[in-house]
Structures are given as structure tokens and as C-alpha cells.
């Protein structure tokens, strides 16, 4: 294999053809325009938008973020512009600039998810990622991603109303990862993405034992990487659809680890905050690595990475 041929690092997720397997994770990349200062965003495989709801949301009160050791706890509460505003204002920018994107959507009820799915369908949105971690108001404030029956109902109903690529994003805060993954696949998901942030809490106690500052939210960043790798490894053998892995990826080596345990593509989240040009750099590094190691296609590399495993 010649070094001169540009390796093929494209990957298919459902009907979505990604030019490369490096995506940016929901909530950590806005709607792409903010990162225009740091790179040519259209180089990335795709960006995943901030979670979009039917109506705009103002999110949670402060404090919303807290750095912990190698991690970040966030409690943003899904502040977003709402689906209509996204379509009116953000979508044209993405299209005009040839930025491939995946729409991350969230709802407080199955009906709400269905309604957003219909809007996506009629607006020719190509790919949707279902964020399951909002509380499910109807079934007594459980989260959708924790209960097999609700998850099946949600995924299959969205599936009925949206016939393009559907990704289901799973949380690791569950008793049986493989059951949730199988349920999503059975419900009609084209791919699984995982992991979402991990439930966490921080409390700062000051000397006089007064005025504690606390935050309950989702933990992300490199401290969750061992949990994410385990999660993906556990579900890989139970499903046939592709997996988009994420959780603490902050360098090229991390990305390879996700491929090794079962991912077909990856998302970069919190590390965008640390290194705003990371996803762009990873695309370059992946190309170079493939050339150095004489790989013609990503599929070959991934096969070798999984081989000894």
C-alpha cells in the first residue's frame, strides 16, 4: 500500500456518511460558530448540537459548573434555543458552511420527542441523537434511559416518525448496560452513542461550616474515561449496530482506546474546553497515523485494534 494514497477514514453510521470518525459532543461545541475562531469546523466528521427541546429552555440556576479532579460537573439544565429557533437561525449557518451535524434532541415526555422528531423529518434533518437523560415527567420522574420498557417505547415511537439516521445516546448510570443497548437496537436505533455524563455531586464546605456551595449534576472529562471504556466494552458484544464512543477523550491515544473496546467513531466533549482545536488536530493525527502505519482504511485499523482483544 502506497504512502501517497490518502487513507480512507470515512465511516458510516446508519445512512450518515461521515468523512472521518471524529465528532464533537453535544453541549460542548454549541452550534459550531463559536469554534470558528479556532479551526475550520467543516474538517470535523460532524458536530453534535447542544440538546434541543421543543420549546426554548432557560436551564438551571447557578452554580452550573464546578471543576473537580480531572473532571467537570455541569448542571446546565438543557438551556437551549428550542427547535424552531435552531431551524431558523442555526441550521442555515451550518448548511452554508458545509458543516455536517447531528441534532441532539431531548424531551420531557414521549409525545414531546415525537413532536420534535416530526419537525426534524419535515425539515430534512439527516441525523438525530436522542438524549435520554431528562427526567420523564409522566412515569414519575424516572429518566427515559433507565427503564427498558420506556426506552423501547420512546425509541420505537421516534423511529416511526423519523426515517433518517437515529442515534440513541446512553447513560452509564444503569444496572445493566447491555440490556439498555439491546433495547435501543430493538427499538430501531441505527447506532448507540455513549456515555453521557455520570451523576455526581460536589460540596464545598468552608471553614466556619456556613454557606456551603454545592452542585449536583453530570460529571465529564478524563476522570470518566475508565467508566466509558468499560461501558462500551460491555455493550459491544451484545449489539450489531455501530457505537459512537465518548467520555474523557483528550488525545489521540484515548481515541484509539475507544476503537479498541468497540467504538466505530468518537465524540470529543469536555476536552474541547481545554484544547479548542483538539477535534481538528485529531483528524490530522489520524490521517498521519494511518499513513505511517500503512493503513488504507479506518476499518482495517479498527479491526487490528480490536484484534488482540
Amino acid at each position: 500500500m502506497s504512502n501517497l494514497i490518502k487513507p480512507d477514514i470515512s465511516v458510516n453510521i446508519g445512512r450518515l456518511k461521515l468523512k472521518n470518525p471524529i465528532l464533537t459532543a453535544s453541549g460542548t461545541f454549541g452550534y459550531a460558530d463559536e469554534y470558528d475562531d479556532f479551526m475550520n469546523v467543516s474538517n470535523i466528521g460532524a458536530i453534535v448540537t447542544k440538546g434541543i427541546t421543543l420549546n426554548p429552555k432557560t436551564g438551571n440556576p447557578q452554580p452550573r459548573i464546578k471543576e473537580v479532579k480531572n473532571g467537570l460537573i455541569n448542571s446546565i439544565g438543557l438551556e437551549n434555543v428550542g427547535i424552531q429557533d435552531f431551524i431558523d437561525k442555526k441550521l442555515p449557518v451550518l448548511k452554508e458552511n458545509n458543516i455536517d451535524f447531528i441534532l441532539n434532541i431531548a424531551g420531557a415526555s414521549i409525545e414531546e420527542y415525537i413532536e420534535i422528531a416530526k419537525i426534524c423529518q419535515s425539515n430534512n434533518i439527516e441525523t438525530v441523537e436522542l438524549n435520554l437523560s431528562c427526567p420523564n415527567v409522566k412515569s414519575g420522574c424516572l429518566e427515559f434511559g433507565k427503564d427498558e420498557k420506556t426506552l423501547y417505547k420512546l425509541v420505537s415511537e421516534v423511529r416511526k416518525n423519523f426515517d433518517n439516521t437515529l442515534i440513541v445516546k446512553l447513560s452509564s448510570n444503569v444496572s445493566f448496560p447491555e440490556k439498555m443497548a439491546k433495547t435501543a437496537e430493538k427499538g430501531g436505533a441505527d447506532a448507540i452513542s455513549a456515555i453521557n455524563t455520570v451523576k455526581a455531586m460536589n460540596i464545598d464546605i468552608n471553614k466556619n461550616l456556613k454557606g456551603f456551595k454545592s452542585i449536583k449534576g453530570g460529571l465529564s472529562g478524563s476522570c470518566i474515561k475508565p467508566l466509558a471504556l468499560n461501558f462500551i466494552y460491555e455493550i459491544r458484544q451484545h449489539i450489531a449496530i455501530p457505537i459512537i464512543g465518548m467520555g474523557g477523550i483528550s488525545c489521540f491515544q484515548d481515541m484509539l482506546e475507544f476503537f479498541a473496546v468497540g467504538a466505530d467513531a468518537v465524540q470529543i466533549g469536555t476536552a474541547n474546553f481545554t484544547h479548542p482545536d483538539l477535534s481538528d488536530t485529531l483528524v490530522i493525527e489520524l490521517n498521519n497515523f494511518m499513513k505511517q502505519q500503512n493503513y488504507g482504511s479506518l476499518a482495517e485499523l479498527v479491526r487490528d485494534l480490536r484484534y488482540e482483544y
Partner: protein
Amino acid sequence: MQLKTQNKIKGPHIVEVLSNIKLSDDTWKLTFQNQEIAENAKPGQFVSILCEDLLLRRPFSVANTINNSFEIIYKVKGKGTKYLSSLRNGESADIIGPMGNGFTIENKNSLLIGCGVGIAPINFLSNILEKSGIKHSFVACSQTFINTGITENQVIITEDGSAGLEGRLDQHLKKIINEVKPEKIYTCGPNPAMAYVSLTAEKYEISVEAALERDFACGTGVCMGCVIQIKDNNKTINKRICKDGPVFRGNEVLWQCPI
């Protein structure tokens, strides 16, 4: 909207340290060499510095620019600022910026009030107003004296009386306003101080611009971690301090509730 697709205009820049000097017990001034930041930075804007293996960058106001270099003035608080204080001439740092929106510069008699390390952006603003020949007075308040080098036009207030007037800002502000008769006030510092400035100025019907602070995660406007409620006619809306600010008009901030 056509995006720029121009690469890395805000960094990450690998930037050389020109000097790192102590201004007081816990306050330091770092000077970095970087033409792009030095040319583009406006008073009130900030840079975000990668601090060793800390997950999040730390934001610091640009405190001055001189030719191809820029300065920050920082107070050692935790790991990040401890790392900054360990930087030596010739070493380098990974910096993005300038970020955010700076102060609006108007040809009005201005009163500049910096408290604590809030002196940093005010110091930069003062230099720019000076260069533009805009009339202004600079009030620098701190617990103990922070020697920024500026002395002309500067009223110094220190709580411990180590320089200038002894006491706190609220013991002196009204008198200063009455003397200076400013048409505009710029301020940066701890929230209670900025709230006091803002509410006092309101009584005198003087418009205020305040540079706010809060923990940042992304510092680029994508995470919604730093939002503040801003008065917008009869309702309140969320604005991002890092992207929509850090400078806001004093009268649009809800100073009463915790910011």
C-alpha cells in the same frame, strides 16, 4: 452567515513569558510576547490560559498591551494561579484569546474604578483612554497596596492604609463622584463592590459598565455554564458572561440576587 474558516485566529497560541513579577504579597504581573493578542485585545477582554494538567483553562483580563506583548495581573488563589506564579522568563504558556467583549470607549469624562485584581482591565482601559486623550480618573482600591506602576490620575484606596487613602471604597466613592463629576463609570472587582458602584451611579444618573466574573468552563460561549440573568425590558434573559460579556451595563445586571 459565512464563517471565517480562517484557522486558529484566537489560538491556541504558544506564548513566551517575558517577565513575571510580584506586585504585592499574593498579586503578580505576567508579561507575554504575542503579536496577535497584543494587537487585537481591547480593555475588558480576557485570555484563557492552560494551567499544566488542570482540566479547565483559567481566564484573566488583559491588563495592558505594549508593542507585541501583553500583560495580566493575577492573584494567587489555587492550583492554576500557583502554576502561573511558577512561570519563568523564556518559558511558554498555551493561551487563547482575546475573548469576550470589552468596554465601550466613549469621549466622556470617565471614572474608572478597579477593586482588587479587578484593577487589571481598568489599568488597560486607563492606558487606552490616556492614549486617546479622553479625560478620566482612576480609582484603585485594594486590601493592601498593589503597585501597578501607574500613579498619575490615580486615587489609591487601601483598607490597610499601606498607600493612598485608608478605608473602603464606600467610604470615599460619593466624594470622588462629586469631585470628578464623571459622565461615565467603568468598574471591575468583587461583585459587592461593583454592585455598590452601580447602584450609587444610578442615583447620580451616570451610566456604568462593569466587567463581571464567574467560573468559566468553556470560556468560548458554548457550554452555558457562566450565564447571568440580565434585565431585558420587563423580563430577564440569560446572557453568557464569557461571550456576551464580560462587560455589561451596570443597570442591566440584577445586583440584588446572587450573581
